């Protein structure tokens, strides 16, 4: 953040996040996910946190025997952590559950990969939960696997087990057949261009810092869109927005959307009507994107959960690119205590007005 940014200096009374931990990356490190003792070490860590009363709840994942989609679980007692699990199918971003714990007496542990951790930091920066109330158990994420891709790779057969190697994946089906496919072919879309797989802020971190996968595919698509004429872009977005069924899943998973009474749910003023037409689709999509701009951590959970496959990442990343170009601000969620650049100003700001 260049010091040229003249933020309205925090005034005495302003409630900055309680006390910011100075050492952001802790000393305690655990084994990496690929390592055999990883799961045991993770369970021990969680159990001891609960047992010693450091935390009163841990949000993580629980094994689901017959499906490749582990359930989000809320562990309250040390014993329960027996079936805590963390594998490469933990796509769900669990940081937003912290909002249900705003008034919870006690501390909460969260097992988070890089993108989830940025969500936690953003919630702290938005003052939804104080930093000292969250125990961040970070995992350097090698990339998550998309269960749908594995199932389509297995075709008709049912998948019983998946063994993930460093760069390839072995799929074992119920009928006993085995097949090996490259890891890249089954990774979740967002992980293919994930630049920051490591939690920026954590109390304990499992695994060494991962490089992540650098791919400018999204930005090339955005550049290509920018080169189009406005009529072509209009057609492009009309075709995608037309499919939106207004399920609001993208809003409900987003760590930057922490309002209890969202503008889309309000009757007075009547911002968004129920009718499904292009006007309301545009209003919803544009307003959602603009509201989170400057605070969107780029976790692309919205893009992942959208049932009708609207390319939300093309909108979020475009806004993020513009905010970065215009105000030279860091990726939200990477540093504690950082406010959105849209609530600051600088005399030398670019000016799009005449």
């Amino acid at each position: 953040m260049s010091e040229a940014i003249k933020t309205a200096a925090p005034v005495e009374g302003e409630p900055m996040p309680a006390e910011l931990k100075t050492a952001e990356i802790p000393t305690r490190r655990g084994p990496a996910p690929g390592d055999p003792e990883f799961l045991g070490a993770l369970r021990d860590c969680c159990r001891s946190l609960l047992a010693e009363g450091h935390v009163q709840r841990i949000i993580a994942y629980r094994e689901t025997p017959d499906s490749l989609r582990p359930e989000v679980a809320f562990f309250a007692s040390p014993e329960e952590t027996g079936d805590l699990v963390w594998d490469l199918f933990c796509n769900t971003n669990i940081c937003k559950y912290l909002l249900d714990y705003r008034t919870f007496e006690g501390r909460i542990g969260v097992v988070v990969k890089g993108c989830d951790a940025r969500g936690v930091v953003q919630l702290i920066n938005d003052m939804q939960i104080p930093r000292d109330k969250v125990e961040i158990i970070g995992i350097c994420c090698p990339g998550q696997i998309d269960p749908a891709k594995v199932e389509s790779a297995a075709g008709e057969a049912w998948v019983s087990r998946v063994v993930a190697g460093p760069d390839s994946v072995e799929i074992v089906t119920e009928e006993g057949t085995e097949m090996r496919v490259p890891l890249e072919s089954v990774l979740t879309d967002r992980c293919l261009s994930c630049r920051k797989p490591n939690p920026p802020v954590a109390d304990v971190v499992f695994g060494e810092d991962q490089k992540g996968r650098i791919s400018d595919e999204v930005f090339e698509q955005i550049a290509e869109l920018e080169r189009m004429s406005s009529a072509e872009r209009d057609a492009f977005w009309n075709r995608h927005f037309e499919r939106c069924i207004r399920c609001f899943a993208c809003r409900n998973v987003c760590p930057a959307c922490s309002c209890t009474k969202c503008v889309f749910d309000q009757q007075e003023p009547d911002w968004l009507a129920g009718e499904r037409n292009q006007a309301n689709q545009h209003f919803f999509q544009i307003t959602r994107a603009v509201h989170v701009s400057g605070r969107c951590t780029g976790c692309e959970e919205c893009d992942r959960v959208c049932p009708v496959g609207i390319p939300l990442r093309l909108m979020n990343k475009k806004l993020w690119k513009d905010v970065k170009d215009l105000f030279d601000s860091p990726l939200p969620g990477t540093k504690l205590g950082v406010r959105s650049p849209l609530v600051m100003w600088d005399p030398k700001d670019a000016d799009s007005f005449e």
Partner: protein
Amino acid sequence: MPVNESAAAEAEMMTEAEMTTDGASGAGADAGTGTWEPRIVAFCCNWCSYAGADLAGTSRKQYPANIRIVRVPCSGRINPQYILRAFQRGADGVMVAGCHPGDCHYTTGNYYTRRRFSVVQRFLEYVGLHPDRFSGHWISGSEGEKFVQTAREFTEKVRSLGPNEKMRDVL
């Protein structure tokens, strides 16, 4: 954003004479001749651009009646959602006007306007709104002429683009 060649060329074709025709009232059939008239909503900040518009009035400067002004205390009060609402309800062009940076009656109001709309303007173009349909201006209380000039140019630009279909939700 690459300047849209066609619109710039069309605007250039206008001679001075065509520019000063006194536009008629608003969207839909014009009161007299039945030709289509663009509807333009202008959000003006009370202290500068609204006063500029008033000055244009006191100096009896003529400008197209397509412009309809909504007064806000400061350009910092203009929520980007109002722009979307205006287009939803049938506006063909939306203008935002505030005090020149540094002159804001509330000292920093228009600095936030500048930041918000430098992002929102690019994003509106990105999702396919024609760039000539939305524009922002710094117009001070003593710039009646600039208000008139901006009103005329913007109306002609929008007129050349025809009715806006994007986000339109009228019966």
